[in-house]
């Protein structure tokens, strides 16, 4: 296995990207076989880091309309989370504060609630759908579980599988755990180019060349540029989201809402925007729309001070589902890309990494996620 690992800049596997996806996979690779030498090539502090801007939900409800396998993949990922959080805590001492008390999607009008109910029905009526519990609730049912909702909330969908974590601590715990498991972390090593020669990979960075037996692209939106260098098509684009965070308050939100959550530390995060934009910039119109909706859902949020706002870029495919793929022309090159790096973190460590270690993404789990799904002719 470690034929390439004698040289200082040679590794059995090189993961390109040190965000949540890359760190989860690198950690999983090192745990799968401690003899495997693994390195993570990362950009510097100014990298466009979705992993530091995300909303930190471990979210199931409503995912998978159009691809029931993705719903199953997400349910499985949420189910793997408790063991993953416990393992991270045991190895790093860091508590990522996983809570899975079930989550809400609130509706502010009858039309919204009806649309919500229809969407979830359509999701669960798909062939091959692995059904799970969810419930459409009226105002009084929601109020019994979340007393702070305002009079404008007409109802909600509730799914007992939903939850959230402290995402910044998850990021730190993953980096601590992967280094603890023997992964070499190489910041300020952005991959400029990748060449496939004689069954191995040569990666050019500003700090010199890195050699790898296998390469895993986990560079978020950077995968679109890197993929073709190893025979992989990775059609992803940035999609902006903006987040508002308030000062800390005593706990008042016992469940996460898809656009509002109270962190373990007491801050309230509000995030409601999906924008086609390539710059991670914050804008007042969107931020005030986010705040206005949040206050209609929970009027008392209106009395809180906002301490920060930020924007980050999601990694989005045309259909919104992840891409997991292996290169046919450059065997040993893999790509993993998604916009749910938190929800799927345990899956990436416990399922994706062992498959990459074994050298093959098994068709039964992964075929549906290949980028080949985008290659059917437009007429078909």
């Amino acid at each position, binding site marked *: 296995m470690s034929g390439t690992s004698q040289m200082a800049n040679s590794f059995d596997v090189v993961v390109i990207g040190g965000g949540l996806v890359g760190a989860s996979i690198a950690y999983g690779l090192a745990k799968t076989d401690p003899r495997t030498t693994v390195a993570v090539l990362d950009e510097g502090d100014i990298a466009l880091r979705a992993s530091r801007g995300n909303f930190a939900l471990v979210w199931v409800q409503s995912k998978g309309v159009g691809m029931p396998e993705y719903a199953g993949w997400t349910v499985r990922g949420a189910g793997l989370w408790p063991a993953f959080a416990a393992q991270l805590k045991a190895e790093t001492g860091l508590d990522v504060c996983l809570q899975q008390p079930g989550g809400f999607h609130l509706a502010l009008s009858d039309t919204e609630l009806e649309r919500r109910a229809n969407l979830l029905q359509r999701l669960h009526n798909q062939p091959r759908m692995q059904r799970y519990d969810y419930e459409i609730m009226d105002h009084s049912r929601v109020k019994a579980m979340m007393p702070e909702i305002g009079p404008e909330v007409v109802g909600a969908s509730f799914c007992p599988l939903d939850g959230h974590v402290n995402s910044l601590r998850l990021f730190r715990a993953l980096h601590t755990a992967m280094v603890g498991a023997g992964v070499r972390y190489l910041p300020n090593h952005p991959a400029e180019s990748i060449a496939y020669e004689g069954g191995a990979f040569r990666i050019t960075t500003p700090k010199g060349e890195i050699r790898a037996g296998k390469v895993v692209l986990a560079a978020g939106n950077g995968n679109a540029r890197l993929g073709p260098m190893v025979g992989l098509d990775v059609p992803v684009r940035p999609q902006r989201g903006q987040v508002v965070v308030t000062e800390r308050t*005593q706990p008042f939100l016992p469940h996460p809402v898809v656009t509002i959550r109270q962190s373990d*530390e*007491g801050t309230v995060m509000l995030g409601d925007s999906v924008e086609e934009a390539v710059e991670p910039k914050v804008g007042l119109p969107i931020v005030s729309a986010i705040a206005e909706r949040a206050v209609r859902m929970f009027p008392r949020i209106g009395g809180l001070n906002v301490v920060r706002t930020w924007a980050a870029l999601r990694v989005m495919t045309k259909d919104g589902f992840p891409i997991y793929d292996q290169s046919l022309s450059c065997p040993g090159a893999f790509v993993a890309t998604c916009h749910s790096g938190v929800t799927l973190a345990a899956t990436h460590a416990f399922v994706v990494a062992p498959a990459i270690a074994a050298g093959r993404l098994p068709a039964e789990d992964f075929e549906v996620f290949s980028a080949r799904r985008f290659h059917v002719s437009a007429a078909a």
Partner: protein
Amino acid sequence: MFRRLPEAQGESIPFTVDGVPQLARAGDSVAAALLAAGIDHCRTTPVTGAPRGPYCMMGVCFDCLVVVDGVGNRQGCLVKVTEGMRVETQRGKREIGR
């Protein structure tokens, strides 16, 4: 700990701290009035519960957070005392309703 300058002028303004009547002087910020009244800490931190009192007196450090007339997390050094104002010390995080 703090004494008013002998030449300090101004009428007395009655207000309360945790229900106890106190006297400020016209123009005092809440933080200054607390210090003048000998109150050396006005809140506890949300994380460790350590006591905190007014420090920078100019709106930067956020150590003088108090509940003013039922609204939490007010910066005591940026709010002027008014007659009958109800100031309360704050324990940890503010509550959502106040």
